[in-house]
Structure formats: C-alpha cells, structure tokens
C-alpha cells in the first residue's frame, strides 16, 4: 500500500507517518505538487491555524490535490486537513478552503465548556455505514484536539439537483458537529486517528484498503 502524506508545514507529521508505517504502508512525504500526479492515495494532515493552508495555494498543491481527487484517488484530510475540504473557516476568513464539502468551519461558542475540545469523545456514525468506520463499534471513542469545528452536514439536494452528503459521523461537544466526512473517494476526520489507539488504527487501515467503485 502506497500513501503520500502532504507536508505543508502545519505541525508534526511524525505520528501520522509512524501509524501508517505500523500498518504496513509505504509512506512518501512530499511538499511538491508534481509528486501528487502519481500518488495512489493521499493524506493531508495538519494541526494549528487554518491560515496555514494558504501554503497549499502558494505552492500549487491545491490544484494538484483537486486533480488527484478528480482522478478518484482516495483522499483523507485529518483535523485542519478535513476543515480545508470545506469552503473556509472563520479562523481565517480570507483563506478559502477547497470547497469540496459545503459550509464554513466555526469556533466553538463561548460558554461553560473548555475550548479547545481536547480528549476522547465518542463518534456517532451515520446509518448508511461509512466505509471509514467498518469493523468499529457504533459509538467508538477517538482523540480530538481543536477549537474550530465543521458544522454537521445533512443529506440534501439543491435546486440544480446536486446532492450534498451527510457527515459520516457526528460528535457532541457544545454543539453537534461533523467528526467525519465521506463522499465517494474523499474522506475527512476531525479527530486524530493516529492517536486514537486501536480504533484509530482501524480507521486508517480502512482508508488504506478503500477502493473506489
């Protein structure tokens, strides 16, 4: 299993790479768009500020990722990597996301609860049975650390008949938000599968073994 991990200087890649290698994947880490043209499978990690995704635009990685997704290469965004799949984030209003999924990432509202949302929370997986969560319990615990969230998506159809997906899994913390997204060959997880014990390794394995139909 070959997988390409995109390095865009948004935090530490060591844990993601280590988990993928543990699962037997052949991992290539790159910051060059031309490498994506021959990638078989792509992971976009990322921690920290949404503005860090500007580097994807500046280095030409954004069109290369778009092209890979169009080629139906399996793609997984983790944390900020998932948030970037949306249209944008209030964390960096001037920085657009890829816009693959509809919506804008929001900051958890002020209240009694701690922000960031840090720790192990349960995910409520979609009835359809997302591919990412095969073999897992319905309410598995995974490790989160984030202050901005992807609003929960519900299946809908716009006026032009375009179908938009529901989130693959949702989590409750202050609000009900999207813990995972899944549409065709494109996946996103807000939590850190590489830090979520056996459950997280299973999710990464499901991604590595996913074949688009």
């Amino acid at each position: 299993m070959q997988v390409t991990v995109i390095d865009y200087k948004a935090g530490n890649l060591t844990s993601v790479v280590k988990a993928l290698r543990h699962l037997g994947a052949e991992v290539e880490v790159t910051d060059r768009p031309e490498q994506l043209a021959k990638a078989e499978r792509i992971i976009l990690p990322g921690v920290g500020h949404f503005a860090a995704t500007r580097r994807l635009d500046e280095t030409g990685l954004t069109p290369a990722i778009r092209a890979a997704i169009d080629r139906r290469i399996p793609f997984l965004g983790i944390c900020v990597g998932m948030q970037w799949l949306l249209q944008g984030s209030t964390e960096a209003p001037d920085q657009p996301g890829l816009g693959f999924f509809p919506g804008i990432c929001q900051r958890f509202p002020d209240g009694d609860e701690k922000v960031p949302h840090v720790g192990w929370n349960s995910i409520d997986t979609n009835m359809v049975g997302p591919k990412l969560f095969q073999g897992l319990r319905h309410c598995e615990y995974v490790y989160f650390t984030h202050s901005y969230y992807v609003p929960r998506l519900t299946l809908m159809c716009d006026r032009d008949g375009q179908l938009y997906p529901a989130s693959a899994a949702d989590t409750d913390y202050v609000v009900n938000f999207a813990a995972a997204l899944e549409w065709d060959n494109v996946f996103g997880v807000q939590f850190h599968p590489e830090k979520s014990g056996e459950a997280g390794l299973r999710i990464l394995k499901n991604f590595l073994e996913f074949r688009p139909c």
Partner: protein
Amino acid sequence: MLTRRIIACLDCREGRVVKGVQFVDLIDAGDPAALAHRHAQEGADEIVLLDITATHEGRATLLDTVRRTAQSLFVPFTVGGGIRTAADAEAVFEAGADKVSINSAALADPELIGQIGASFGAQAVIVAIDARRDPDSPDPVRNARVFTHGGRKDTGRTAVEWAREAESRGAGEILLTSMDSDGTRNGFDCELTAAVSSAVRIPVIASGGAGTVAHFAEVFGAGKADAALAASIFHFGVSSARSLKLELAKTGIPVRLPC
C-alpha cells in the same frame, strides 16, 4: 460525550522509570517504553514521560527513550523535563512526542510558549505548574505559589495568575501539580485544581496525590479537572487504568472504556 482523561505518568531518570515521593526517595520502576505500552494497553488515555535527569549527558538518552517509547504508542504522548528552548522541543517532537510539557523554562521566558506553538500548534504545548498552598495568606488556595527546581525555588507568582498568563500566551493545556499532595497518595488538591481550572478556558490536568479511585472521582467532580495524572498508582500493579475507569464509570464519570 467528552470523557475525563486518565493519564499515566512515567518519571524517568537516565532512561529508567522512577517515581518520586514528594520529589525525593527515588525507586526504580522499569523500562519506560515497556511501561508506556502496558499503560496504553490497559486503557490509559495518554502517556506523559517526565525526564528528571536534567544533566546535559542525559539529553541523548532522553531522545532515545522518547523514540523507543513512541515507536508503537498510538495514544497522545507528552514529554517534559529539561526542555529549555524551541530547539529542545523540536528534537523531542522529531523523536515522536505529540506534546511537550514546559515548566521552569516557560517561567524564565514566557515567550517560549508561543514560539513552540507557532511551529507545532498550541495543542502541542502544555505548561506545567508546580504549586504549593500559601499557608500565610488569607486565601491559601487562590494564592497558592508557583515553585521551580523541585520545589526549592519560590517564583513569587500565584498558580492562578500564571495559568492565566500561560493561556493568553498560547498554552494548549495546564498540568497542575500540587506539591503539598504529590506522593502522599492522600488525594489531589481539589480546591487548588478547581481554582485554576475555573480561571482558564483550556483544559487542566490535575497531578499529585492519587491513591484511590475516590480521589479521581473527587478531582473530576469538585476539582473540575479535565484530566488526571497518576504514576505510582499504576506502576506496581496497585490498579490498572481499566479497573480505575470501570470504578469511575460506576460513579457516573464519563470515561473511555476500550474494547
């Protein structure tokens, strides 16, 4: 539902796990990589490795220990002790840590918090605070003082005020150790933990004094802790994270119970 975290702490010296009782009387408790793995298997939500070697020669040993420990550990892994600069932190991250815990270096140079956060994200920076109640103050808890150098040096700052500053400078979490309780196994300082936890919006990890299941229930309840650290309660087979969590679940505290 977000669960309360049980964090297993390994105090290490020269590459071996030791556990201090009120910062003295060290006894050998084993290999850090093996123990970290065992704790994770037994249900610990995170692992913290605190290096108390503090000598220059010990740094290479530490990085090797971190690398070996991180190799097959797939829960969050924090490393602390002796991290004085952003470069020290970077070396530890490269060796496989997910977070660093900084203590006296952050007090000496608070900008270090933001410097590490800028490269690795705020979630990767834990500011550790060693505090002791101030018995001479009219409010010994709210005026609990911050100490460094294993409790020998009074910084003159209060834990509440320093925690707030650390948060404003971009710390992701606070690791609060009560020096009055540490090693006693008589329970966490719940009042101190609640005072600090209520003063900040970032998570607070309580440390010092774990001895029984009831102590954890107290610190998650009255102590308002988001996570609790325990070292000696685990190492000698007194209890596992799993049995601790099963007991906590019975008292209504949300915990992660892996299959």
